[in-house]
């Protein structure tokens, strides 16, 4: 079955095409079954290909199949080739596995929606493009997937396009991503010219052997990383992700938490040879990641919208992944990507279940005491919160620890400190969310509080699955501290990403684990103190530091700054061009030529008398003149 791996993206793609063309004529049951089984088939094929990879001897190449020559122009050759190596296997399993659970969840969550078929068509289309992105064997084909997922993200953020906020958020996401993608394209073209090909293997090798000078490698790596900051919502292009929460909650879970936003991390890992060859570029990646991790976490501390907290948390966690990639621990970055995909989509889906129960309420100030009303959602949400907070023996603990340990071992002590600080904040804002939502008194509006109900089975079963993965996924990457079978994940990834082996004394590593545990417990304790023991404390603290509080609530006014620095000047410039050039020059030329033709017509009008003899006379005169010329 492994030879059929090239069908993995094509099945959801075909399903999407069918749904786009005939979706409105199909029954809802059929649409749900078709969309979900397409992803399920992809999952089966991915699993088969994964098993094939595991059985390969070390050092053997993964699967690869060329479907089409596609572009072949002189030296520039870019075929449609799907490849399936270790890195792709991990991504494909996450995309199809989490994707399947979210498809199932959506069948219930969207059951009331009138555009059911359109929703699943777009969700399938997204799965297709995401799989193209991770299975592409060269940058040009990857860019097709890269743009395709951006398109689907736009379509699904603006899914309820009759809500102005949703339409606007979709547009914002699209435009902000264009900024990053401009740099991304330049990076691709640059590598095409310098390396002479767009295949990942060729690029990594050129960087490793010095065929690509390190200065040029740095430039290319940074250009590509700017694209990644757009797609993966990092400083300075993170501003679209919080707004993207206007989309349906399962979309936030799939696209804006588990898969698409981690495409940047995947890209850096895929080109690990290039990034490893350039110390400055790696430093930029690590520091942008660390800055984003802290910066986004501070904003998550004061958000009141349950989904916005999770959105800032996603930005912050992707920052961690980039810290991992930046310090050379690509496998650790990917490990966190995987565990994050599980626990963050769990948190989003559970939040969706809460929102569903409260008939659309998203403000945590009007929640509380939901623990007893939601007997399934509450425990799974708690599992997700514990996992992301880095409480020992859940998945987030191992993956975050892998990143922080690598940073420490690489001598990046400041990055390590920032990561630890971020971990405290992560635990704090997650448990603030838990306490505000599930504990305390009920603060619902009467309408919302009236019919609180646990979600249907189609929604709770995926939650239970994700909770199980959030607990267990960490055990594939146990730190060396825990014995000989350690770090299966890292050793598996050695086939396709650069790996560093750090040498830390067992006692040092043990100390780091204790510190990480302390950080997460401290965050939880602080949240308990603030939102459970003395609920008056947050208000008092806010009035004690009004400036800082307002800065955080205002999200550092970054949106306003961008608005003033970039958006409004652009709009004003566009308006000026419109008035000066479009209206005056282009429209002027057009209207001018029309007026000239009209004037000429009016001037020659008298010739058209409508009388046959006048025309005959003109004819005769013409004939005589002609004859005269002939004879003379």
């Amino acid at each position, binding site marked *: 079955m492994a030879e059929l791996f090239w069908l993995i993206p094509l099945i959801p793609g075909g399903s999407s095409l069918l749904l786009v063309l005939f979706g409105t004529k199909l029954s809802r049951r059929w649409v749900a079954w078709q969309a979900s089984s397409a992803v399920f088939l992809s999952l089966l094929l991915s699993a088969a290909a994964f098993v094939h990879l595991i059985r390969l001897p070390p050092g053997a190449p993964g699967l690869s199949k060329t479907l089409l020559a596609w572009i072949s122009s002189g030296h520039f050759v870019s075929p449609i080739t799907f490849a399936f190596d270790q890195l792709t296997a991990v991504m494909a399993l996450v995309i199809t596995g989490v994707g399947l659970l979210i498809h199932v969840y959506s069948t219930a969550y969207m059951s009331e929606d009138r555009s059911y078929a359109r929703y699943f068509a777009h969700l399938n289309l997204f799965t297709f493009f995401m799989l193209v992105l991770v299975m592409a064997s060269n940058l040009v084909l990857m860019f097709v997937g890269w743009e395709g997922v951006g398109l689907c993200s736009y379509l699904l953020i603006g899914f309820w396009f009759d809500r102005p906020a949703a339409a606007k958020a979709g547009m914002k996401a699209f435009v902000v991503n264009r900024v990053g993608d401009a740099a991304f394209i330049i990076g691709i073209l640059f590598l095409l010219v310098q390396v002479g090909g767009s295949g990942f293997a060729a690029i990594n090798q050129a960087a490793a052997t010095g065929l690509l000078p390190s200065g040029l490698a740095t430039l290319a790596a940074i250009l590509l990383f700017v694209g990644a900051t757009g797609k993966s919502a990092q400083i300075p292009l993170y501003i679209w992700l919080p707004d993207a929460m206007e989309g349906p909650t399962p979309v936030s879970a799939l696209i804006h938490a588990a898969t698409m936003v981690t495409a940047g991390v995947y890209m850096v890992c895929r080109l690990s040879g290039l990034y490893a060859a350039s110390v400055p570029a790696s430093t930029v990646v690590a520091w942008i990641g660390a800055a984003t991790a802290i910066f986004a976490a501070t904003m998550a501390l004061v958000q009141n919208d349950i989904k916005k907290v999770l959105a800032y948390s996603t930005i912050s966690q992707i920052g961690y992944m980039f810290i991992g990639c930046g310090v050379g621990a690509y496998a650790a970055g990917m490990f966190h990507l995987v565990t994050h995909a599980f626990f963050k989509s769990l948190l989003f889906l559970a939040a969706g279940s809460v929102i569903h129960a409260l008939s659309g309420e998203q403000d945590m100030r009007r929640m509380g005491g939901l623990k007893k009303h939601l007997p399934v959602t509450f425990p799974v949400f708690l599992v997700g919160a514990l996992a992301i907070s880095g409480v020992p023996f859940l998945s987030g603990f191992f993956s975050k620890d892998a990143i922080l340990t690598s940073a420490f071992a690489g001598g990046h002590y400041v990055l390590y400190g920032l990561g630890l600080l971020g971990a405290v904040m992560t635990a704090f804002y997650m448990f603030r969310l838990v306490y505000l939502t599930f504990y305390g008194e009920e603060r619902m509006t009467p309408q919302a509080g009236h019919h609180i109900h646990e979600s249907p089975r189609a929604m709770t079963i995926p939650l239970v699955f994700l909770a199980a993965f959030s607990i267990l996924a960490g055990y594939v990457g146990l730190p060396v501290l825990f014995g000989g079978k350690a770090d299966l994940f890292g050793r598996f990834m050695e086939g396709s990403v650069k790996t560093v082996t750090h040498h830390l004394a067992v006692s040092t590593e043990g100390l780091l684990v204790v510190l990480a545990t302390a950080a997460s417990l401290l965050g939880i304790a602080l949240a308990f103190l603030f939102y459970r023991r003395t609920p008056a404390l947050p208000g008092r603290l806010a009035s004690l530091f009004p400036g800082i509080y307002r800065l955080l609530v205002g999200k550092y006014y970054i949106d306003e700054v961008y608005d003033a620095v970039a958006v409004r000047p652009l709009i004003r410039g566009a308006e000026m061009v419109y008035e000066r050039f479009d209206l005056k020059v282009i429209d002027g030329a057009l209207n001018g030529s029309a007026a000239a033709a009209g004037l000429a017509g009016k001037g020659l009008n008298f010739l*058209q008398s409508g*009388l*046959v*003899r006048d025309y005959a006379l003109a004819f005769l005169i013409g004939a005589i003149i002609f004859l005269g010329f002939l004879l003379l």
Partner: protein
Amino acid sequence: MIPPSAFFAVAVVLFVLGVLAFFVKKDLLTQFMSVEVMLNAGNLAFLALAKSLGKAEGQVIVLFVITVAAAEAVIGLAIIVLVFRQRKTIQTDELKDLKG
């Protein structure tokens, strides 16, 4: 033997008569007939030349002209009939809808 110039003279006279008639007359039918007269003046000139030069092309052309003139007569007369049915007149001075 009548010299070719006599035929030319007749052709020219016929042609000029056709032109004059076209300009003098005001109804479509007569103007149409004067066009036929001009065509036949041309035919006569062709035939005279063909005879005097001893070549067959001139005669061939005349056959063509007669054929085309027959077709043209059918269409022309049909148009005139239709115009009359629509407007109850075929006076060309009254048919000036194409005035710009």
